[in-house]
């Protein structure tokens, strides 16, 4: 890469080259759609308590839409089952609907498109890049799987849904809708952890909820494909922007499938945005085409 090219790809601004090549809007297309989705999801829940428009009641743990459609977080329901409580039909139905949806749309699409903590940790990651903070303590990414196991084991051992007492994800969402108490401190802790202690620590390494949804979506139909990998100019922008950069390599540089197969991929589409060469696109899992 020449010096002029390198200047186009500053480490703190992975979208710079894409903005130059495709324009501001197209270089942020999926990011904008994602933020819209996240805030729309939140707005639906907030419209009731704030404006009296009751489309959705409850919170992400369990909700009722238009007084008919029950939706429940399958992870919360699973913890209840592990604790030894046979959930009532409404929660089971709601959890089944969500499970089927995310099994198809990509489990961690929940993380990227719905979860409110994603906004917090994305902000921390952005600030980290801006301030040029180097990664320091590195946690093993498998910690979240172990934590997932631990939360379920703990529920079974105590007979209580223990994880939900501290889960920052449900705390933030619940806090916004029903009132925070001191829960903002837990959310702040996640932000500080991601900003100052370890890069992408929460969503990328610790969150057992993310690990659960990854497991749920390990056979997901909707995936990102590096179909045009031949156009790749090795600028590394996608690696810098990606919250789970380890998932890109096999699809982009490997000889096998161009589809990002790792369940850790959140389907956020940021790699599609920041690639000035348009290497990536959303595709079906079985689509093996490369051009």
């Amino acid at each position, binding site marked *: 890469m020449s010096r002029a090219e390198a200047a186009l790809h500053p480490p703190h601004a992975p979208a710079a080259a894409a903005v130059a090549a495709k324009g501001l809007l197209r270089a942020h297309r999926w990011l904008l759609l994602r933020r819209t989705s996240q805030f729309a999801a939140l707005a639906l829940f907030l419209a*009731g308590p704030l404006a009296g428009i*009751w489309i959705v*009641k*409850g*919170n992400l*743990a*369990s*909700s*009722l839409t238009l007084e008919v459609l*029950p939706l*429940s*977080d399958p992870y*919360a*329901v699973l913890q*209840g089952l592990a*604790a*030894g*409580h046979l*959930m*009532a039909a*409404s*929660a089971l139905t*709601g959890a089944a609907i969500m499970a089927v949806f995310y099994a198809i749309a990509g489990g961690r699409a929940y993380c990227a498109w719905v979860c409110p903590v994603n906004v917090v940790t994305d902000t921390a990651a952005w600030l980290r890049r801006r301030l040029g903070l180097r990664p320091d303590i590195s*946690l*093993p*990414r*498998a*910690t979240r*799987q*172990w*934590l997932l196991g*631990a*939360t379920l*084991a*703990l*529920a079974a*051992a*105590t*007979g*209580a*849904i*223990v*994880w*939900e*007492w*501290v889960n920052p994800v*449900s*705390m933030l969402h*619940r*806090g916004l*809708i*029903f*009132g*925070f*108490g*001191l*829960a903002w*401190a*837990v959310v702040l802790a996640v932000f500080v952890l991601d900003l100052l202690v370890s890069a992408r620590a929460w969503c990328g390494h*610790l969150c057992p909820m993310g690990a659960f949804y990854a497991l749920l979506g390990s056979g997901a139909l909707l995936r990102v494909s590096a179909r045009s990998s031949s156009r790749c100019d090795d600028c590394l922008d996608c690696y810098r922007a990606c919250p789970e950069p380890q998932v890109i390599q096999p699809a982009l540089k490997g000889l096998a499938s161009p589809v990002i197969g790792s369940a850790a991929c959140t389907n956020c589409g940021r790699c599609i945005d920041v690639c000035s060469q348009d290497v990536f696109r959303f595709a079906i899992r079985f689509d093996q085409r490369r051009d």
Partner: protein
Amino acid sequence: MAARRQILQGMAGAAGCAALAGLGLGLYAQQTRALPVRALRPPGAQPEEKFLGACLRCGLCVRACPYKTLRLAELGDGVVSGTPWFTARRIPCEMCPDIPCVKACPSGALEPSLQDIDRARMGLAVIVDQENCLNYQGLRCDVCYRVCPLIGKAITLELRHNERTGKHAMFIPTVNSNHCTGCGKCERACVLEEAAIKVLPLKQAKGELGRHYRLGWKEKEKAGRALGPEALEFPIRRPEQR
């Protein structure tokens, strides 16, 4: 080899982190087991240990409550965060006959088998301060008795002689646990600065007989006859004559 060592190290680290977090959580869980005295659960709530394994913390019961009695616990309230509760002195349960909160519960943490609100047991009213209760002073306040939705059943007024005046009666408010639902309307209405009648969670309000303990007269009633000889004959022992 180096790669394998790295993987093993990573796994050990991850497992260590998870174990540590689990331990911390477990200790926290132990600590927050019991419900604080001022906190009451919605009607139909399972016993506290079971409730904490069933409630999804979604707040649908809160939304269903027409009187805004229920709220979700926030971190720092002393009640497990996200679970529904109410304080009787603030807003008591109005005992809706259709029990919308129970109907709204998706998980069954509020038992759908509760069909009759009079059978709810959210807690138990207790006269915690006889020294300040006006009726115990021989006055006719009677407010707790009057506001009780199960008037004459859950709270009755028991007649007693007023020793102080020597010629008046006292009407002592008395809670009957087989009728009291723990709705908290008595506590809400108590005219004192600090209520003399309070609704406590059942665990705090009730004593419990040892499981081995048997009351002779009840056993007799059950069996239809005395379990031992009616009157025991004891040998008479006198001090020995010297």
